[in-house]
Every structure is written in C-alpha cells, then in structure tokens.
C-alpha cells in the first residue's frame, strides 16, 4: 500500500510542477518571459529571409546599374548604405518585428555615424578597400577540412575587423553543408567537393563555388625505427590501399627508398571511417593514377576500401597509425604538421618526388584552365601536371548564392567577409597548414564573388588584386 501511495504522491507532485510551469509560461504576461521569446523571432526571421521574392527581378535587371555606381563620390556611399538598410526594412515588412526594425535602425545610425568620421569609409571601386561596418548575423555549415582556418578567420574578423558581424560556421561535413545550403538553412556553405551538376541544375541553380584555399592530403607512416621521410609513388600508394602490397619489404616500396632498411612487417592501411572530404581527395587521386582503383573502388567521400581498418576523423586516423606498428594512414597536411610528422615524398605526374609543403600544394593549382563562368570554378586538381606540384591537393569552396539573397545588409556583410578572406585572410593559411590560392585562381574567385546581386544590384565592388 505504501508503495502505491508514494507513486501517487510523486505523480501529483510532478503534475503540480508541470502545471506551475505551464502557468508561468503562458498564463501570466510576465515581462521576463515576453522578453525571452523575442530573440528566437529574430533568428526565425533571419532564416526565413531567402523566400526569394526578388529572384525574377534580379535576373531581369541589366548590369548597367553596376557600372554607374563606381563613379559616385566616396562620401555619397554613406548615404547609399543607409538607403540600402532602409530598403531592407521595406522588403522585410512581411515578417518585420519591432526588434528587427530596431536593429536596422541601429545599423542605419551606426553607418551614418561612422561614415563621415572614419577615413576608410565604405569605399567603392577605389584602390583602398575596407569592409563596411555592418551589423548582420551570418551562419554557414559544411566541410570540416577548412574548419580550423574558418574559425580563425571568423574570430579575427568579428573581433577586430567588423565587430558588428556575427559569423558562425559549423563543421558538419561537406555533404551536410551542401544540403543545408540548398535548403536555405544557411547563408553560406563550405564544401570540399562541388555540388553534383544534376543537383546544381535542379536545386541550386545560382550557387557559386568560390575557391577559398588549398589543402593537401598526405600519407603518414609509423614503422618502429624509421624516422626518415619515405618516398611513395602513385603505384605503391594504390597498391597499399588495394591490399596488393601487404608488407613493407615489398620490392616496389624498397625500389623508391634506397638505403632505408624496412623491417619484415605487415602493412596496415588506415582510412577514414566517417565519410569525409579528405577521403574524396585521396580516392580522387588514386582513381586518377590507378586504373585498378578506378575500376574496383572509385572516388567518393565514403568508398568501400578493399583493405585496412577505418578510424573516425583525422585525429582517429593519426591515433590509430601511432598505435599500430606498420600502419599507414592518410591525413590532412595541416593535421600531420601539427602532430609533428615528417612529410613524405610523393611522386607527381611530372615524375618528381615532392613534399607537401605549402608552395608545392599551391603549385597544384598552377597551369589550370580557369573557366570564365563564375559558376564553374570548381575543379579537381589532384595529380597536377605542374613540375613542382604536390599531387594530392584540392580546393575547398565556400558556397554562396549569386542572385537569391534578399537581405542587402547580409549579402554585403557576407561578400565583405569573403573578400577579406581572399585578400587579408590568405595570410593566415600557411600557419594553419593550408596553402594560399595562386594569384590567377584568387582573382577568379574574387571576380566570381563580385557577380553576387541583390535585386539586380551588385553587393560588393572592390579591386581585384
């Protein structure tokens, strides 16, 4: 009896608690509760913006307006900026809340206040470029490969460059980044592989892939007693991962590494168990250099590896390699550098053994035939023909929309940030183990960025240099 009584008591108590909570939530119009509900509304508004009311207009408006703008005097731009925010206010009326209007009013006054005083006022088409001091919240998601770099960019940019911009990037993987971007959940996406052309046509016709930075993938090796940089040819790498080369004493490995005394040890290939851009780059390379690999395994972010074991993430692969004598795994160069691994040599298409150093990774993008179509910048650069190129390299892209942004301030803030990433931001790449874009590609990327339009108006005009 006591047991049932106790349960009844407990249930009554919980019910009382629940009802009290309910009362507090909806019954009394208490000030703190009302306040607490406001910010989500703003967030909802932010994500709801790409309803794309301006799409047909945007495509219809001729580009002539773009060319007239740059002639305006610098001081006039301050007023245009204010006007821009005003138009946003008008377009956003469908879901405009009091708070939104308030923040935009704040933006407007801020621009008005800073513009006359600051010497580096938002410059249009002058040689001096500085990001406009806007207030916006931008969110992105995608590839984990460039995540460390993007986090550094974001923290520097929103702390020191444009404090009003709230940027966030969540590293969820290229595939998810593409999905989020296509579903208009994010303002920009990050991806290591281009959206499939069929998907581009049907789901994201105005997506631009902006190359941001280059990265390399390298094999890392753990053989007890061997600390020198090993040399690999495409054939040995493919052979190891196909399970055809199973011992370190294999003559095909020894041939390239004269003077290295390999022990009689089984090779354990380690691969990424989670589908990842790193695997895409690695398998794309192996598919290009080995017909066997192409026929049996193929290239993709998750493939059926014929040999070895899988570990999750760069950290998982490197921990597994470190724990296993005779293991070889592929990791991002930046990760291996941070972990203090010797860089290996990989034979490139020109027949030279090249270490994945920054300059050599950058060289992989040299001699590319860059498309003049801003939507077709994405391209594979593994097994590059350049003589000093490290062969296992790839671009990582930021996805932006060419015409379907509706919020002018957002689009301006985003394009400023990306422009900054393509100029000042490139300086941070080497330190973090990435390679900066070669000049030609960087310029192509900037040009593509500047084709972004909101309601037919260009959102960024800056020197391509």
């Amino acid at each position, binding site marked *: 009896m006591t047991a049932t009584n106790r349960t009844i008591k407990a249930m009554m108590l919980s019910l009382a608690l629940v009802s009290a909570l309910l009362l507090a939530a909806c019954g009394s119009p208490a000030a703190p509760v009302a306040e607490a509900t406001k910010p989500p509304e703003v967030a909802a508004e932010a994500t709801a913006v790409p309803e794309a009311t301006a799409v047909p207009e945007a495509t219809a408006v001729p580009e002539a307006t773009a060319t007239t703008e740059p002639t305006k005097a610098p001081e006039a731009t301050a007023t245009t900026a204010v006007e821009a925010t005003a138009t946003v206010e008008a377009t956003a009326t469908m879901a405009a809340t009091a708070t939104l209007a308030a923040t935009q009013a704040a933006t407007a006054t801020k621009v008005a206040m800073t513009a006359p005083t600051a010497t580096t006022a938002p410059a249009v088409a002058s040689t001096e470029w500085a990001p406009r001091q806007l207030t916006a919240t931008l969110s992105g998601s995608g590839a984990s490969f460039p995540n460390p770099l993007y986090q550094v960019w974001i923290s520097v940019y929103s702390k020191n460059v444009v404090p009003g911009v709230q940027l966030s990037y969540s590293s969820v993987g290229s595939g998810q980044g593409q999905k989020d971007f296509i579903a208009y959940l994010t303002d920009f996406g990050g991806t290591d592989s281009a959206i499939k052309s069929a998907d581009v046509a049907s789901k994201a016709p105005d997506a631009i892939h902006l190359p941001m930075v280059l990265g390399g993938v390298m094999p890392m090796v753990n053989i007890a007693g061997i600390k020198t940089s090993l040399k690999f040819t495409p054939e040995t790498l493919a052979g190891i991962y196909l399970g055809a080369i199973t011992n370190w004493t294999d003559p095909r490995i020894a041939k390239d590494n004269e003077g290295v005394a390999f022990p009689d040890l089984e090779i354990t290939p380690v691969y990424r168990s*989670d589908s990842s851009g790193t695997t895409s780059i690695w398998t794309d390379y192996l598919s290009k250099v080995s017909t066997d690999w192409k026929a049996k395994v193929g290239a993709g972010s998750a493939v059926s590896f014929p040999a070895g*074991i899988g570990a999750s993430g760069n950290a998982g692969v490197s*921990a597994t390699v470190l724990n296993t004598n005779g293991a070889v795994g592929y990791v991002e160069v930046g990760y291996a550098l941070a972990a203090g691994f010797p860089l290996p040599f990989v034979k490139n298409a020109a027949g030279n053994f090249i270490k994945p150093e920054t300059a050599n990774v950058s060289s992989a993008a040299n001699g590319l035939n860059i498309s003049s179509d801003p939507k077709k910048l994405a391209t594979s650069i593994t097994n590059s023909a350049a003589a000093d190129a490290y062969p296992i390299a790839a671009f990582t892209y930021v996805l932006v929309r060419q015409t379907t942004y509706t919020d002018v301030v957002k689009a301006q803030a985003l394009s400023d940030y990306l422009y900054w990433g393509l100029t000042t931001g490139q300086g941070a790449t080497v330190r973090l183990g990435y390679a900066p874009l070669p000049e030609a590609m960087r310029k192509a990327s900037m040009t593509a960025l500047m084709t972004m339009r909101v309601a037919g108006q260009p959102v960024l005009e800056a020197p391509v240099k």
Partner: protein
Amino acid sequence: MAQQLTPPQWSTGKSPMRHGDVPFRAGTVALASAVVLLVFAVAGMLYVSSQEARTAFGWDLLFGTVWNPIETELSPMSFGGWPAVRGTLLSALIALIIAAPLAIGIGIFLAELCPLSLRTPLSFLVELLAAVPSVIYGVWGVFVFIPFFNSAFANPISTTIGSYIPWFAGPISTGRGLLVTGVILALMILPTIASLTRDVLGLVPNTQREAMLAIGATRWETIWLAVIPYSRAGIIGAIMLGLGRALGETMAATMLVGNSQRISESLFAPATTAASLVANELTNSVSSLHESALISVAFALFGITLFLNFGARLLIWYVERSTRGGRS
C-alpha cells in the same frame, strides 16, 4: 508487492472535478500517448525515408554482404547491411556473456553479502561507472585497453588457439574488432545491470530470507533458492536494459570496432556495427540511395531492439507466471 492489490475505488459520490481528477487523468493520458506517438513517429519516419533503398534492394539490405556506396566498372553499387547487423548482434552478445554473470554477482554482493559500511560507497562507485560517457570508454579503449589486450590476450590467443578455431585467428594488426568492442561494451553495461540487480534484490521481502533461514538453509541456499527466484523477472529486465545499451552504443563502438564492411570469421578482425555505420556515413552520404540505405540500417536496428524488448517482455511474463518464492 506480494499481496494482490485491488485498485482503490475513487468514486466517493462527490464530483470528480473537485479533486481535479478529470484534468489529472486527461494530462497523464496525454503525456503517455505522446510517448507512444513518438515511437510511431520515429518508426514512420524511418520507414518512409528508407523506402527508396528498400524498393531497390529489398532483403539484401539486411542480408547482403557487400557495402559499396560508389559505383565503378568492376564493383556495382550495393548496400548489404549484414556486416553491420552481424557486428551489432555479435558485439552485444559478447558484452552480455561477459557482463551478465559479473553484474549479477556484483548485485548479489551489494544487496546480500556486503558489510553495511562498504555498501554505500561501493554502490555509489558502481553507479558512477554507469554515468561515465561512452566516448571516455572509447578513448580509454583506444589508448589503454587495446594495447594491453593485444599483448596480453589477442596475440597469444591468435597464435595458439587461433590456429585451430577461426574465431580467434590472427593476424592482429591494430587489435580493433568485435571482441575488443564486446569487452568494452561489457564494461559499459556492467554497472547498469549491477545496480538494477541490487535494487531488485533489495525489494525482496525479508520474510523470504527469514523463512529460508528458519528451516536451516545456508546463506548460499537462501540467496539461490529464495532471493534470486523471487526477483528473476527484475534481473531479466536489468539484463535487457543492458543489452539495449550495448546494441545502440555508437561512439565507443565506432572508436573500437575498426569500421570495416568486410565479414571475417575472426573476432579479432576489424568489423562494423549498425549504429557506427550510420553515424559514420550519414552526415556525408554520397547519394540519396546511400542515405536511404543507411536509414534502412537504422530501421533494422530499431527493429532489432524492439524485437528483443518484446522478447524480454515475453520472458518476464513467462517467468512471472511460474511460481514465486523459490522452487520446490
């Protein structure tokens, strides 16, 4: 517990509203049906999202042995979930075989034999073990347990017994595989089963023990013939809860199982489990068919847990039905 309770008659002639009975009843019914609806919503979502793969592959999703998301000249795209389903069942079985006897032993010790001064700290520590996040078990497994397991167990076993029994065959390269996963899973479910067993044994009325002691039974006979049979259903429930955790464990399994879709007879060879396969590949699936196939694997996992829980219910019902309070 022992005496049959008849539900109290609450209608006292007064208005039911007076004690808030009607809203109380409505509230609890709503909360309870929300849980049921949630289960159906999850099942429905899994069913709908896995439709594409199920129409393309049918039962091969469960029993096919080749998992290849990328179509190439020589290897067609194929989504066979058997390596994952097999890995899940085997690793959970290994975990259960190791953990159940140990955990029941711990539970009996804590409830029946432990000196009072030790009981509280020991119980606390066992419960603490249950609160350790699975990723910590995974990390500990990778950096501490696997190297130890390889040198102390896997290598000697594979070179001796392993040459006769294919289950323990070498070679041991990294040591990751179903056996290691099962052992770590056993550690993870051990505290769950142990603390539940202790609680269940604590509910056994003292009259049961006193009756046994009065007729001259030893401690062992008291526990084995009176206490355990009385709480059999509860212990089975505890084991099933542990099994549920072992089946669904994702993080530790991913870190320890080796994530290879190839089926090998050896328990030392890398394998995969359904939960880790889904967690690994879903975020970055290469095609909608791939995603759908992964959701089918999740659906299969859902089905397996549901089926096992149902089996456990049946078992408990069967045990409850048989005579209580010991065998004659």
